[in-house]
């Protein structure tokens, strides 16, 4: 492959502390029909996070819902200044349904921050982020970080319909250029998405691309990355038990140096090099 693969940032050192703490819920409100935003009061110690990292949540046990394992959840926002940790989640099964029952004042045990987050190398000025659905949760702190570092960010936000588009204001307030696309009006199809990105490359240029969640978007960005020699990163998901690297249940296969290697999503990931990722 001719494309530059993404230079790996130094591996998280063995001893980077990870915390298991109980946080108090500040609020847990619906964002739209399927998504909720959970805001926790968190101690400073756990707010030394990087965008793309996640926490492993011990969901509450209720009369109806008895999730067993923890549930991994990307950091949607971390605010050391106000002592808050935010998650944006989709209610899918037992664990997230249990999360949805939490109300202000209740406590939630969280484990983290975990994993290897997104990198923004010093010479990357123009960043592109392509997010769909709950992927926004994962990519949002990247926008904040880009803003803090003074980089230009274009966020292409994809959803089924106009009203499922979340966080547009969040991105806008951070000075990002927003390009909403939806299935409803056909703007989210791959041909149009490619068109939009290639126009952007031709216009200001793109130094790095970030995405997560969608197989088709991954394929498209890999192609574009290869053609235009643009590095990128993707956040991936996998079932997790321990979340910290002990159990080896969360592996995914990656292409590296012509070989297939297994890496732990919780430990080497969840953010991986865009070109090394294998579609699913």
């Amino acid at each position: 492959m001719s494309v530059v693969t993404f230079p790996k940032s130094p591996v998280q050192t063995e001893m980077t502390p990870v915390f298991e703490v109980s946080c108090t819920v500040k609020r847990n409100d619906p964002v739209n029909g399927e998504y909720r935003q959970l805001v926790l009061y968190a101690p400073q110690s756990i707010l030394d996070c990087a965008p793309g990292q996640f926490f492993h949540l011990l969901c509450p046990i209720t009369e109806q819902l008895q999730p067993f394992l923890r549930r991994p959840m990307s950091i949607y926002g971390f605010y050391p200044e106000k002592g808050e940790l935010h998650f944006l989640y989709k209610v899918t099964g037992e664990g997230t349904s249990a999360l949805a029952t939490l109300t202000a004042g209740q406590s939630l045990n969280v484990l983290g921050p975990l994993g290897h987050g997104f990198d923004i190398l010093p010479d990357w000025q123009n960043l592109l982020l392509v997010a769909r659905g709950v992927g926004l949760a994962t990519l949002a702190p990247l926008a904040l970080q880009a803003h803090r570092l003074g980089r230009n960010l274009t966020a292409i936000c994809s959803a089924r319909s106009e009203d499922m588009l979340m966080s547009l204001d969040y991105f806008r307030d951070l000075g990002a250029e927003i390009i909403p696309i939806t299935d409803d009006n056909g703007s989210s199809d791959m041909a149009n998405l490619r068109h939009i990105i290639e126009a952007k490359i031709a216009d200001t240029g793109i130094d790095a691309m970030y995405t997560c969640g969608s197989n088709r978007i991954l394929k498209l960005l890999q192609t574009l990355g290869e053609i235009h020699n643009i590095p990128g990163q993707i956040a991936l998901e996998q079932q997790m038990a321990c979340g910290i690297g002990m159990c080896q249940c969360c592996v995914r296969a990656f292409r590296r140096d012509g070989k297939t290697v297994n890496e732990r999503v919780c430990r080497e990931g969840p953010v991986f090099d865009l070109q090394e990722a294998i579609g699913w």
Partner: protein
Amino acid sequence: MVDLTTQIGSLTLKNPIMPASGTFSEELAQLFDLECLGAHVTKTITREKRSGNPTPRVCEVRGSMLNSIGIPSKGLDAFKANVIPFYERYSAPLIVSISAGSADEFASLCEDISVPGVAAIEVNISCPNIEEDGKAFAMRPSTTYAVMQKLRQATDLPLWAKLTPNTGETTEVAKAAEEAGADALVVSNTLLAMAIDIHTRRPKLGNLMGGLSGPAFKPIALRMAYQCAKSVNIPVIGCGGISTVEDVIEYLIAGAVAVQIGTATFLEPKIMVRMIDGLDAYLKSQGFQTVGQLVGSVEDEEASDGLVFMEAAP
């Protein structure tokens, strides 16, 4: 002051709490000082590199979990180069878990892993092997005896035999391991189980079936630990579903001299630290001077051998 030390053959552990193989690794040092543990037990390794089973490798069932991780392994050389040196910083003994497809390969791996820095070898004789129709060695007393004897000849280090709950001959297998020279028994590995996603109709594990661990498994493993403690003279290390300090105490009362903690660490990574403190507090509150006074203190005087060694539910 309560004396928490426990003796496993020639090894003295500063306390009876240690992790179970496959549920522990260097990364846990990010959460607490691993020095506090009674011992360190590593994930089973094989000599060759292996990639393990297809995903999904875990799923949850009511109040517990199944796993079919398999034995992904970076191989013997990588293990010696990276893992053993990591644990050298600790005084807690390092127990290395190994497995192999045949008795001879097993013995040769056992020999090659008997290196400085390794305090004992836990032999995982409870996963399927290539001889004997793929049955695990620990399914039968005869195969247990055969492999343990070869292992015994291969090393001078203490050998801990890890049993399987899938056998119908728990006590016979335990005795076979003892006779063949095991220094301790670890009771036990996971129990074969299955779950199907009713929406997709696919098995929830990529490998079709997997091992049950966690709270649901506790009464079964506790029964086995009790039966083994009654039938052999070597120490029994209890393992299965231990999630609270009360569970630790229950295993010790049943006759285990130490315990291994697996699944519980996934839910509460610092649970072992809390168990050590909790055990200390409990012993104090009960007026015990040593943990040994608790071991095997189950009030079962009246129980006949027929009951103790029964193999089906009454």
